[in-house]
């Protein structure tokens, strides 16, 4: 809980919901008969609607990117480090929109919503989604808000992939594409970790083939395990060593001690896992990791990213972090090389950071500086 709202916070924010009744044709060939999108906005839209910035969330993210819902909220939104007055995404200058994607479990239509055909929650019957479906649904939100062209679309990780997809699908509707700690497609190792997470969930007896809601149950163990696996991949060896080392939380190394040894890192992971399983839907996690797995920027452009990016009209800002092994700097450089070859304007920075993939959420001075400098350029073009 904040004692007082910090001066560089967007303050107390309200979540909004908007209903779209026109069906949405999905990449899988099925149609979503109308949908809700939940979003938040920070800052003011200017008279010409030219200062709007869209924030695309990552795998388990949602609409609450900055500020506080109330004075009782323990922590601010997930990207509060970067969104606010005077911060890189400066709300004194930009109108910032952050949403929960369809398929999510924080208010937008997803597996926990009621399927109008059956009157029961969609559960595992919710249609599989691709990043492009999110982009198409976000276009509806832009239209609703009166935004013809985003000053910038920004995303980290899976959010960066959505931003890139926007640049190809709707080249005239964004001026800048900000891609942080992302990749054009997953590596086999990425796919393997996602499969491990999904297997953890589906093998929980409470999962019941995804129909756990019918039983008023949740596959809490499986979800927690999935999150623990994910969490390990978001951190680096250095980050874990710095944060926990081999410190013990309980027990001791003495032989004959009755208590088993428990390391700090064990209890941390268990805590993270249990928090997550209480707040996130298992079917959504499966759906989101699948969308991540199937993302392949260049597949329909003859597997040629240069050909793909030839469709883009915006400028790009790409950032990676030295210890990110989930989406390593090499993956970001592939994006940059393709953009250069496609003769698109691109700026690339590789930030020294110990924090691994999670670094994109951290207040690393150099990252904030260069990101701010780029966003000032975005602002000057509004």
């Amino acid at each position, binding site marked *: 809980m904040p004692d007082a709202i910090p001066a560089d916070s967007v303050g107390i924010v309200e979540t909004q919901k908007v209903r779209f009744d026109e069906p949405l044709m999905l990449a899988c060939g099925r149609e979503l008969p109308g949908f809700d999108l939940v979003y938040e906005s920070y800052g003011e839209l200017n008279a010409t609607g030219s200062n709007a910035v869209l924030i695309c969330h990552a795998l388990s993210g949602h609409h609450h990117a900055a500020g506080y819902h109330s004075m009782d909220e323990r922590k601010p939104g997930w990207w509060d480090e970067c969104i606010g007055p005077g911060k890189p995404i400066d709300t004194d200058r930009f109108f910032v929109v952050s949403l929960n994607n369809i398929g999510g479990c924080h208010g937008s239509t997803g597996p926990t919503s009621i399927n109008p055909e059956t009157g029961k929650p969609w559960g595992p019957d919710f249609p599989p989604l691709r990043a492009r479906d999110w982009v198409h649904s976000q276009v509806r939100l832009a239209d609703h808000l009166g935004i013809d062209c985003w000053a910038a679309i920004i995303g980290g990780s899976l959010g960066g992939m959505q931003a890139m997809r926007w640049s190809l699908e709707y080249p005239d509707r964004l001026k800048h594409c900000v891609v942080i700690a992302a990749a054009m497609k997953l590596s086999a190792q990425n796919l393997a970790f996602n499969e491990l997470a999904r297997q953890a969930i589906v093998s929980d007896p409470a999962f019941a083939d995804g129909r756990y809601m019918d039983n008023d149950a949740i596959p809490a163990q499986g979800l927690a395990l999935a999150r623990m696996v994910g969490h390990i991949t978001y951190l680096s060896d250095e980050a874990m060593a710095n944060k926990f080392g081999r410190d013990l939380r309980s027990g001791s190394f003495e032989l004959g001690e009755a208590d088993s040894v428990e390391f700090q890192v064990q209890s941390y992971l268990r805590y993270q896992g249990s928090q997550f399983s209480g707040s996130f839907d298992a079917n959504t996690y499966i759906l989101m990791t699948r969308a991540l797995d199937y993302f392949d920027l260049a597949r329909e452009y003859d597997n040629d990213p240069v050909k793909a990016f030839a469709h883009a009209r915006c400028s790009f800002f790409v950032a990676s972090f030295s210890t990110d092994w989930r989406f390593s700097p090499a993956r970001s450089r592939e994006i940059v090389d393709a953009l*250069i*070859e496609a003769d698109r304007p*691109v700026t690339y920075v590789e930030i020294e950071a110990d924090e691994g993939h999670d670094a994109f959420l951290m207040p690393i001075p150099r990252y904030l500086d260069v990101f701010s400098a780029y966003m000032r350029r975005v602002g000057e073009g509004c």
Partner: protein
Amino acid sequence: MRHDLTHIQRWIAPGSRVLDLGCGDGQFLKTLQEQRQVRGTGLEIDEANITECVAKGLNIIEQNVDLGLGNFPDQSFDTVVMAHAIQAVHYPDRVLEEMLRIGREGIVTFPNFAHWRCRLHLGTRGRMPVSRFMPYTWYDTPNIHFCTVHDFEALCEERNIRILNRYMVGNTDNKPRLARAWPNLFAATAIYHISH
């Protein structure tokens, strides 16, 4: 702006695609963009310089020239520039070849180590020169491959690199004639426009 850089602009076609290796704070690229409407990309490794370039609205790639330029396709730029940086790379000859693979033309500028002041300094004091153009002590310098006008031209000849134009800058603005007449002795900065 340094007046050697002002001169280079004439060799760059308006609207062309320019890659600037080791672009520093981006002042040159910025000027080229404003005055010649080039589509520029800079490569730089210094963090403060990179942020400065971004603040100037330039397209900048964080990349170490010394680790290779293989990610740039053949002939993907009209002109590749390397201003006051070739003496700081590990393999200047390889960088030259790469410049002319990536670009149709190249522009190289470097401090001429055979300038009379350097010679005098070395000749009379017997110590490595430290001057405005080479403001580093020998043990703490990014410059690891100093060369002279003669050395550079010999390398070009050996590698079949054509010198399209050259321009010599004296150590003060009022001695251009000396620098042009006896470049190896009087040019403080040598500027070359090259191609294959």
